């Protein structure tokens, strides 16, 4: 049986051993990784980048000390050093290192090349990063490799890193490319037969499609014109006149004459009001012997189309002939 005295001696001895063993256990914990990832390596840049640490040191981090390479110029105005918490600024997968201060540096010393920030605690064995930017007279100096500095906290001993500075602009590539202009135009057919015209009904030819593909940044326009005489018979030396003046559409149901109706197709181009009938109804616009716009589109398009429908209705006195003919020209252009 142990006496009380023996028990107390044993207890104190075991406690002493626990303390002795615990101290080396703490001492063995350390920083396992530090990373200094600059945003730019260019000699003309101000220092900015991400600073990361992974540590198993017991205790709470409260300050971060960054020692920059000796060739850096450190602006000692602390407000010219800013710590941000933008997630995209730190390496993917890293834990954001919180700022517990103003966001500006606590101190900045050009002699020791040291900048200190107030930071939050780092969870054990967690890769934790912060991002900083600098303004003012800060500069990373001339091109050179193997430029060393260190990263430490109030409880984590300084761990060295190395970085590189390249010549001005030596970390960037200006990329250029050209998208060449393109334009294609086609008509779905070269003829539009109206057939036998009627005094009581509107006759419509089969629609002729006009298709445009272009990468013109401002889209395209399409125009149309017809021959001077319009729908004219050489044999009868007579023409079928327009239903009215140019600029409006006319319903041939209640009028006689010859004209063009334009319908929007693929790509939904905008049909000009002068030719914008109402779908398959009997409205037509007036063809002119000089080009008049029939459709436009404000953006590039592939396979944009409109349909041209020629319609006519004759009066009872229209001279009979089988050679009423007109030649209509369609043109289009890209607005590059």
């Amino acid at each position, binding site marked *: 049986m142990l006496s009380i005295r023996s028990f107390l001696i044993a207890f104190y001895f075991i406690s002493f051993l626990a303390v002795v063993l615990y101290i080396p256990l703490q001492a063995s914990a350390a920083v396992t*990784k530090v*990373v200094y990832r600059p945003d730019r390596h260019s000699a003309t840049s101000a220092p900015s980048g991400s600073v990361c640490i992974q540590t198993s040191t017991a205790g709470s981090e409260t300050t971060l000390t960054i020692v920059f390479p000796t060739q850096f110029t450190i602006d000692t105005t602390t407000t010219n050093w800013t710590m941000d918490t933008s997630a995209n600024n730190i390496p993917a997968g890293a834990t954001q290192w919180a700022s517990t201060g103003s966001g500006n540096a606590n101190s900045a010393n050009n002699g020791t090349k040291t900048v200190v920030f107030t930071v939050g605690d780092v969870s054990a064995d967690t890769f934790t990063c912060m991002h900083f930017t600098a303004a003012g007279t800060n500069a990373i100096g001339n091109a050179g490799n193997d430029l060393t500095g260190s990263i430490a906290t109030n409880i984590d001993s300084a761990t060295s*890193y190395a970085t*590189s500075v*390249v010549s001005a602009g030596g970390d960037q590539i*200006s990329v250029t*490319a050209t998208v060449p202009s393109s334009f294609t135009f086609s008509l779905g057919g070269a003829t539009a037969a109206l057939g036998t015209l009627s005094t009581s009904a509107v006759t419509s030819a089969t629609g002729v499609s006009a298709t445009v593909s272009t*990468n013109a940044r401002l889209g395209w326009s399409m125009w149309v014109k017809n021959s001077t005489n319009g729908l004219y018979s050489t044999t009868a030396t007579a023409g079928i006149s327009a239903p009215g003046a140019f600029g409006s559409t006319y319903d041939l149901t209640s009028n006689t004459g010859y004209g063009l109706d334009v319908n929007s197709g693929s790509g939904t181009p905008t049909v000009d009001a002068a030719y914008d009938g109402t779908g398959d109804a009997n409205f037509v616009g007036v063809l002119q012997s000089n080009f008049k716009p029939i459709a436009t589109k404000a953006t590039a398009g592939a396979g944009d189309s409109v349909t041209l429908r020629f319609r006519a209705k004759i009066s009872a006195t229209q001279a009979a002939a089988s050679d009423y003919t007109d030649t209509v020209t369609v043109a289009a252009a890209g607005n590059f």
Partner: protein
Amino acid sequence: MKSFGKIIIIFLVFLASAVNPVRSMAGPSSINYKLEQYSFGAGGEDSMTSGSYGLNAILGEIESGQLSSTNFKVNSGLNYTMMANVPPAPVISNPANYYNKLKIVINEGGNASDTVYAVAISTDNFVSDTKYVQDDNTVSPTLGPEDWRTYSGVGGWGGASGVIIAGLTPNTTYTVKTAAKKGSFTESGYGPTAQASTILPTLTFDIDVSAVDEETSAPYTLNIGNLTPATVVTSNTKIWVDFSTNANSGGAVYVYGANGGLVSTTAGSSINSGSTDLTGAMTGYGIRSNSVSQTSGGPMQSVAPYNGAGNNVGILDVNKRIIYDSSNMPISGGRAAFELKAKSSDTTPSATDYSDVITIIASGSF
């Protein structure tokens, strides 16, 4: 057994003296036995000679005494006959440009395989700084029993391959020496020293822009050329990266763009970047790794989504993304190249000023 017999004899002498001091001068005795002659120590013979050698000392075991020189020490006498041999200088080296590590190979010095060794290490040749290599190969001022390790085997000093001492200070010369022991009271003194140095952390980085593998200078421009609609266009010119670091956990090369795509101010249009197979995409823009190599270490490797084949490209946006790493290992002479690919559609507005700015950065995990 011999030693045990001596102890018995000494004990008997002591016993006899204690019982009858007067009779001890005549030799210890008991009812059945009598020790006719005795003395303390193991005796020996002085000034022996042969044809070639002469010994100006007593040969044999004596009670105490020590012969020493700068590097060696002989503790003679009964209790020291089983001392381990003093280990010769270990071999310490920096075989891979370590900045906080060194490699040490213990020299057994003829000791038996169950001999254990301790390594002392110093930054000032043991003037005021003495630490010891721990069982986890870090260094500490304390030498614990667990830090005595066999030459090889589990938890040993790695045999002929040695072990890597970690947690050292960059750009510092370290001096090491070893001691050996084989059971209690057999610890040798520390042997001769050896030295090696850590170097500073290193990181070299450079880019080149060329159709072939060659060094070029800034400013760097790269014209992809005409992006014929519905056609994947690959830049003839490649972007080359030089990367080396002795960082313990290797390093990585990051890439990011300015616009998230090729942007035309004139056309007010952009060809957006994304990770995709441009073959089946309407439009797109991205980069794809072409080659990786290194002189040693690593290896350098391209990382998804930049390591695809054919017209598979990785995104190039404003986020810094890893395109290459060194497999978490230090690397020397890393060299990699990647190309740009773009595709416009029939409706991509034409312009001659589609552009982007690619920035490449690198870091090491020290």
